[in-house]
């Protein structure tokens, strides 16, 4: 059950388990823990879940050849990759096994490709091969013909990171996890009663703490432990291009990696759009997701190496995300050293999305074992979600319409999203509360016109469903109101 604002008004809420962070890791942990007999609350500083790195990354389910053998990154990546398809199926999240290539453009880069191949084998990655120029171009005709060879990774895939996060949260919520949004953990103390977490909206107390706070995870960890960690927010900027009739690439196209990460990729997405990016700049602001001309130019220039006929004619938007890069360059997953009851997932940058199912499973098994948690007699399955209208054939559309005539009303014309789907997104267990929240759950406003036509309609539906005036509807929570006042109201008051 979702705990709404009214349920938490500065009261000291006592729980068995408190999860900090509503990204893909926090929600995956919440879902695992919801199988156990315990009261679980998840707090998230954003106005929605998946507001941090989970809403703005490449959405790649990595094969696992990048990570250093023996590292936590390597282990969780390969494990997560193997779990991913069934995992997405279980919660109704998008997954496509598209494959990937790492392109080499000279003999030096060939050596890197060969090293990645061997590293992949050591990590236990299946479906790897090094292919030569002709084969690369036969599989992907739009690749720069100057390519010399490529690592082909058949087990690489695509998901929608925020949709997966929403699906995990919904599954956790139907099994009793409470979600508190707009609730930032500012300070953590431990005493005999457990952990006391201060938030701007009151204090929460829990016996078990799970820190999945992304870019904030090290700061919170350091309040409990002398063994400190240091996270640097690392910004990545992207271009997103519209889906077209003929996809440019069918696989994720990597270039050889750099010390700052996997470099600029050109990749289809789970929704058949095309993604270029990311850049990588370290920043000191963990909430700054503004884009910059310099980084976007860099993305454009680097992507052109992969895709020489690069065309930005169909760009629908640009965006930025923040990775949580830890100084030790590895995932830190498990119990906090010398702090009984505290568990953590720190430094979860790429391949964190791929690793999420494996990280959550490992953490929760450990929590259950060390705290004697027992499984509930019944764990409800994830809520069934209809196939998106845009992906239905004519018969399925008619059948959906017969079930609910609101399927007959197209609200977002670019992405073909219906009124039925927008209302359903607001009514989900962890439902949409803003224009952007609807957008990420339904794709309404994600297309060519970027909400130009549908946002007034979505606003109207949100106002109706949430029973708030249109002037209270926000783009993305906080003070992001879409409208500043009613003209009729101003007339009545005499100020117009």
């Amino acid at each position, binding site marked *: 059950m979702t705990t709404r604002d009214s349920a938490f008004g500065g009261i000291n809420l006592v729980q068995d388990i408190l999860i900090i962070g509503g990204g893909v890791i926090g929600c995956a942990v919440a879902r695992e823990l919801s199988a156990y007999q315990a009261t679980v609350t998840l707090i998230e500083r954003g106005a929605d879940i998946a507001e941090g790195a989970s809403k703005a990354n490449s959405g790649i389910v990595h094969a696992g050849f990048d990570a250093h053998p023996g590292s936590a990154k390597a282990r969780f990546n390969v494990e997560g990759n193997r779990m991913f398809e069934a995992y997405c199926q279980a919660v109704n999240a998008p997954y496509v096994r598209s494959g990937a290539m790492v392109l080499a453009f000279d003999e030096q880069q060939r050596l890197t490709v060969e090293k990645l191949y061997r590293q992949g084998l050591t990590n236990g990655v299946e479906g790897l091969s090094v292919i030569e120029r002709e084969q690369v171009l036969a599989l992907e005709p739009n690749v720069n013909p100057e390519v010399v060879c490529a690592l082909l990774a058949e087990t690489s895939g695509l998901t929608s990171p925020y949709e997966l996060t929403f699906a995990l949260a919904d599954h956790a919520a139907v099994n009793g996890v409470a979600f508190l949004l707009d609730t930032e953990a500012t300070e953590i103390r431990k005493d005999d009663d457990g952990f006391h977490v201060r938030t701007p909206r009151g204090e929460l107390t829990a016996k078990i703490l799970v820190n999945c706070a992304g870019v904030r995870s090290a700061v919170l960890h350091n309040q409990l432990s002398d063994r400190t960690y240091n996270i640097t927010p690392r910004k990545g900027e992207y271009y997103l291009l519209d889906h077209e009739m003929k996809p440019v690439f069918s696989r994720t196209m990597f270039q050889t990696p750099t010390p700052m990460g996997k470099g600029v990729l050109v990749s289809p997405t789970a929704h058949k759009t095309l993604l270029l990016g990311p850049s990588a700049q370290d920043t000191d602001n963990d909430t700054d997701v503004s884009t910059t001309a310099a980084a976007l130019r860099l993305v454009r220039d680097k992507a052109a190496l992969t895709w020489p006929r690069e065309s930005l004619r169909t760009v629908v938007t640009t965006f930025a995300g923040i990775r949580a890069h830890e100084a030790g360059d590895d995932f830190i997953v498990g119990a906090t050293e010398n702090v009984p009851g505290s568990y953590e997932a720190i430094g979860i940058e790429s391949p964190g999305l791929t690793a999420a199912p494996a990280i959550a499973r490992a953490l929760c098994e450990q929590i259950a074992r060390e705290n004697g948690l027992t499984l509930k007699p019944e764990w409800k399955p994830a809520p069934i979600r209809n196939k998106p209208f845009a992906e239905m054939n004519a018969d399925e559309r*008619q059948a959906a319409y017969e079930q609910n005539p609101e399927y*007959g*009303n*197209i609200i977002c014309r670019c992405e073909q999203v219906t009124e039925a789907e927008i209302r359903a997104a607001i009514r989900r267990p962890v439902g949409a509360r803003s224009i952007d929240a609807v957008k990420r759950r339904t794709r309404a406003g994600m297309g060519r016109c*970027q909400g130009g036509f549908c946002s007034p309609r979505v606003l109207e539906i949100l106002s109706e469903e949430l029973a708030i005036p249109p002037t209270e509807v*926000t783009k*993305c929570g906080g003070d992001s109101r*879409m409208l500043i006042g009613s003209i009729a109201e101003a007339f009545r008051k005499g100020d*117009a």
Partner: protein
Amino acid sequence: MANGLQPQAVDVLVIGAGPAGLAAAIAAREAGVTNLLVLEREPEMGGILKQCIHNGFGLHRFQEELTGPEYAQRDIERVKALQIDVRCATTVLNITKDRLVTAISRERGMQLFQARAVVLAMGCRERPRGALAIPGTRCAGIYSAGTAQKFVNLEGYMPGKRVVILGSGDIGLIMARRMTLQGAKVLACVEIMPFSSGLNRNIVQCLNDYDIPLLLNHTVVDIQGRDRLEGVTVAQVDAKREPIPGTETHFACDTLLLSVGLIPENELTRQADVEMSAATQGAVVDDALQTSQPGIFACGNVLHVHDLVDFVSAESFKAGKAAAEYALGSRADGRTAAVLDGEGVRGAVPQRIRIPDPAETASPIQLMFRPSCVFENAVIRVLDGDREVLRIKRRILAPGEMADLTLKPELLRALSGQALTVRIDASEGVCAWNS
């Protein structure tokens, strides 16, 4: 295709009941089509005119200054008088080159039509912020001008009170005045080009009359604000339209309206595998507004973006009549000649014209296009191969105002069949539109 759905036969099917679709439907009915259907995605007819509550519409067609809704109402009344079947709140989902059209509505569910002729009249959409890749945050308070116009004029809500407008397209100019009249402060209208893309009358009546500065050769280089917009940074641009460092000015504002171009909405057109023009972003058509797919016609802003609704209506009457002739089997074929954009010309429409037989009583053909720059004392020339067949002098030409010329029947009859080229020669010109 849906196995369970039986297609309904329609002689002429019009997609869209904005000014283009309404005119096409009226013309088709007046040409004798009884089995005629119009599909409109919005709950009411009239298209974008519904929210254009300012006046200035209809000067050419009615010799009157009407508001948008008044203009639309005249066609709506005619459609009703002619008892034309219009299904509103019905979205077309798919169209094939064989003119099988799938639609859905809340009232009727999925619907399938087999049309003899289809008129595409879906209009255009505004180019959004994302397409420009303007750096900065993605906060609330950034709207395309038409979205803001809908909020203000149809929904009765103000999107903000301190406004910067990026782009000087007509809707942006109109909204500069509208927001001002509604009590907002419009700080500036910022245009990256050395000239406005809007009509001169709108610059005078919507900016100058309200002392709103028009900053030519300027653009927005940064957007600030975490939740709601707090300000934008504007900089001057060089001849390559790159921002010049050191020229930045900051505007504290809560609203940024974008009027940076209109894009014909051709998703359905592409599904039908219709040949497209890169210059207009609409279909390639002949002088009867027929696309490369026989029986599929296009008119209005889905074909090419017009400045004046009067010309949308005129074009769409032609398309409706031609679609009727096609559906009723009375269209003449014959020799054709291609029309090409020459120097200084962008997006001449139609791209193909029929050469009448020597004995035929043919109608004149109007060619419409945009000058690629601002030209003074210009000469528009039409070349048949390399033979000049027409020469027209114009004192001023600008990209913001569609130019046109008429090819008379005697000229048409004498054409060789080689491609015609339309070009502009000018001694003086401010040329910058070369993208």
